[in-house]
């Protein structure tokens, strides 16, 4: 423990060198921009700037590139809150309540809470990284396909809590999402499924085009048929900040989101995407006012935004302590280290303590910088809402198209987004919530792959899910959740969904 603190102090000495401070700032700045602009995600941001770091030393390079990664998680909420366009897959859930808050004139508050939540979660993640990285990373390795399968089953059960409309509608949307997720090459046999001879569909339907289409474009298409607000919201500076009640409502969700996100972030693979979904569902489950979700619940912004930030820090655990690239972003970072002659691996801490601790310390500093960078920007971003819709919306559509094209330079993605935009419009008209569809799309390929990988490992024996402790534990949680729901049903007690249905019925009449 003492040696950890000593090393960390040494790390701060490295991080506070003017050069390193400057590159941390640069990384955070670029990361914020990358997060704000839809389409260009952290992955492309980092790889575009990779050649720039060839002239730097390894510590500076990794400080800057990592800054882009965690910085982008701060900015990702901005377009979600203001325009209902998810900049990255991990900010899909922020669209729902963040944008609803903006409609109530609380855009500034939502942005502030997102920034502060990100800061708390990011810092929490770094502290955990400092203290417990090596033992945790070894446990994370035990998270193989069977454990993944069990986690995703839990995710599917949480689906029921995703939506503000009825359970039947939620499940219908989730099924469509799961079916869309089946499109693409079957990883196990190589067969193309539902690809209509388009090689572009081989990798399946991307999350970004679907989310941008359903949320962003669908929203814009349905605006002309709403009563357009005449007055422009121009909040005073004091109103930009969250009020006391909003702070109070966001404390626990930020705390829960930080822990949940960090745990999920450590798991190798693409699990970080589902961290914000799971956090949203969790908040709704524990909330005393679940009916407020979808109508601007503060917890619906605070939880997921904290979770995705903590997850991005958690992803550094296996990378730094084991040297394994668990996802494409950490793969680019490891590549950057290797180009500079620093092999990332279990010996990184002992062989290059300057780099390791300097990097960890730079993340403490970087998170502070991001907070300082993002809070003043809130007032700037909110002024975007003052632009009349007639000018703003065509611009947003252009942004959506350019952004979606940039993800993998595919015109097919743009068509998918446009089709999803029309679908999103229809869904809104008929009061369906698109969030479960997106979650279904995220889960389907992961669940299918890990289920079939598990069965390869066990030679077709389903007992594998019950013989591994972590998987068994997760499945028991699933069973308990289902049993609780069944019990509530059996006792004929009205749960929140029934209450909600009544509330909705009342609203429709009124």
């Amino acid at each position, binding site marked *: 423990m003492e040696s950890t603190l000593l090393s960390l102090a040494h790390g701060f000495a490295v991080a506070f060198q003017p050069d390193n401070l400057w590159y941390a700032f640069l990384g955070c700045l670029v990361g914020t921009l990358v997060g704000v602009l839809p389409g260009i995600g952290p992955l492309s941001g980092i790889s575009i700037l990779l050649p720039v770091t060839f002239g730097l030393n390894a510590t500076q390079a990794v400080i800057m590139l990592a800054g882009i990664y965690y910085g982008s998680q701060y900015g990702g909420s901005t377009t979600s809150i203001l325009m209902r366009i998810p900049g990255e897959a991990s900010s899909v859930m922020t669209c729902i309540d963040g944008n609803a808050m903006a409609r109530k004139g609380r855009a500034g508050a939502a942005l502030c809470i997102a920034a502060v939540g990100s800061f708390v979660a990011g810092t929490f993640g770094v502290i955990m990284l400092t203290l417990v990285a090596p033992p945790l990373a070894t446990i994370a390795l035990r998270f193989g396909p069977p454990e993944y399968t069990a986690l995703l089953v839990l995710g599917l059960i949480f689906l029921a809590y995703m939506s503000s409309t009825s359970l039947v509608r939620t499940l219908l949307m989730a099924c469509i999402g799961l079916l869309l997720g089946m499109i693409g090459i079957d990883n196990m046999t190589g067969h193309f499924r539902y690809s209509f001879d388009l090689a572009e569909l081989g990798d399946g339907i991307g999350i970004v085009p679907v989310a941008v289409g359903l949320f962003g474009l669908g929203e814009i298409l349905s605006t002309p048929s709403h009563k357009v607000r005449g007055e422009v919201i121009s909040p005073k500076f004091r109103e930009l900040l969250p009020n006391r009640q909003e702070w109070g409502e966001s404390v626990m969700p930020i705390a829960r989101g930080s822990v949940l996100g960090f745990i999920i972030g450590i798991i190798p693979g693409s699990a970080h995407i589902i961290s914000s979904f799971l956090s949203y569902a969790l908040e709704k489950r524990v909330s005393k006012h679940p009916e407020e979700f979808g109508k601007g619940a503060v917890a619906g912004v605070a939880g997921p935004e904290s979770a995705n930030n903590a997850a991005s820090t958690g992803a550094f655990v296996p990378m730094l302590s084991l040297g394994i690239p668990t996802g494409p972003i950490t793969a680019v970072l490891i590549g950057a280290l290797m180009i500079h002659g620093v092999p990332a691996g279990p010996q990184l801490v002992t062989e290059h303590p300057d780099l390791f601790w300097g990097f960890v310390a730079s993340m403490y500093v970087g998170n502070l910088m991001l907070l300082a960078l993002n809070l003043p920007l809130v007032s700037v971003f909110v002024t975007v809402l003052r632009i009349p819709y007639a000018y703003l919306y065509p611009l947003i559509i252009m942004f959506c198209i350019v952004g979606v094209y*940039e993800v993998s330079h595919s015109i097919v993605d743009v068509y998918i987004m446009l089709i999803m935009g029309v679908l999103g419009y229809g869904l809104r008209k008929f009061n369906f919530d698109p969030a479960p569809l997106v979650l279904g799309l995220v889960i389907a390929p992961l669940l299918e792959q890990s289920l079939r990988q598990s069965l390869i490992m066990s*030679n077709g024996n389903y007992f594998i899910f019950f013989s591994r402790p972590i998987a068994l534990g997760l499945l028991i949680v699933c069973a308990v959740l289902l049993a609780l729901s069944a019990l509530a049903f059996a006792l004929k007690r009205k749960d929140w969904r029934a209450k909600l249905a009544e509330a909705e019925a009342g609203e429709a009449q009124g």
Partner: protein
Amino acid sequence: MDRRHFVAGTAAAAAALAVRPTFAQDAYPSRAITIINPFPPGGAVDVVGRPFAAALEPLVKQPVVVETKAGAAGQVGAQVAANAKPDGYTLLAHLPSMSGFEAVDKLFGRTPKFTRADFIPIARLTEGPMVLVVNDQQPYKDIKELVDDCKKNPDKLIFSSSGLYGALHLPAALFMKAAGIKMRHLPTNGGGPALTAILGNNSQVLVSSIAAASTQMKAGKLRALACFSPKRATSLPNVPTLKELGYDVEFSIWVGLFAPKGTPAAVIAKLGAETKKIATSDQFKTMMTNLGDEVGYLDQAAFAKFWDKDAKQVEAAVQSIGLVQG
């Protein structure tokens, strides 16, 4: 918007405007060159392609942009390049698995989207030697123990790979065929996940590039049993090659540069000459060595010959895998 793109686009537009009055038919290149990377960022092509593009820029005095067109295990990017205008402004960087798409398509009774004949090889840039590793929970000291155990207990061990018919699956299939053994295949979606699987003992065997596995081998988490290179790798002098052990298998992960069929010979020659300068420069060599790759430069003629031989082997590997029942 992609910053490099914007810069590249602006620079190219400015250059075109400035130059037009005097040289209507300018010497190649007169605008930005695009190198298509058919894999997600961070993959083997990306880490080789970006330093290469950065080095090519000052030589051709035009922006060189690496454009990601990922999809279908590298098939989408290759297809885009095959259909691009053959003017030397769209190039492709790809891996050995490129030679397998035609065979895979035939296996499934599909019309191939492109064949090897749609491309002109320009040069081979790097060559990464491959190694067969087991994790530290396995008892095998050498390849013979592994093969003997696999013969006694077929389908007991699991090997992971970056994906079906991918660059890590093909050499494993060639080895199993040569040794006459069977192991179960655990496909994942990338080199990183394949490595994670063996470290977590979700698979026991992996054929990997030495680069990707080197730190884990040093840490004792993975044990190398055999190399796929023609002679022992400099970084692993104690690990025998498969050839030495009596298995006729050679395989490496190379990164090659290609142009679409119909690209003028003068353009190919120009690109070949500039590529040679880069590939033989010390700076590029240091970067590749750091990555664990070896600069395996082959000029156009040598690469074309090598590619023909390599492709036969890849096709044989695809056929030995055959259709997978799932």
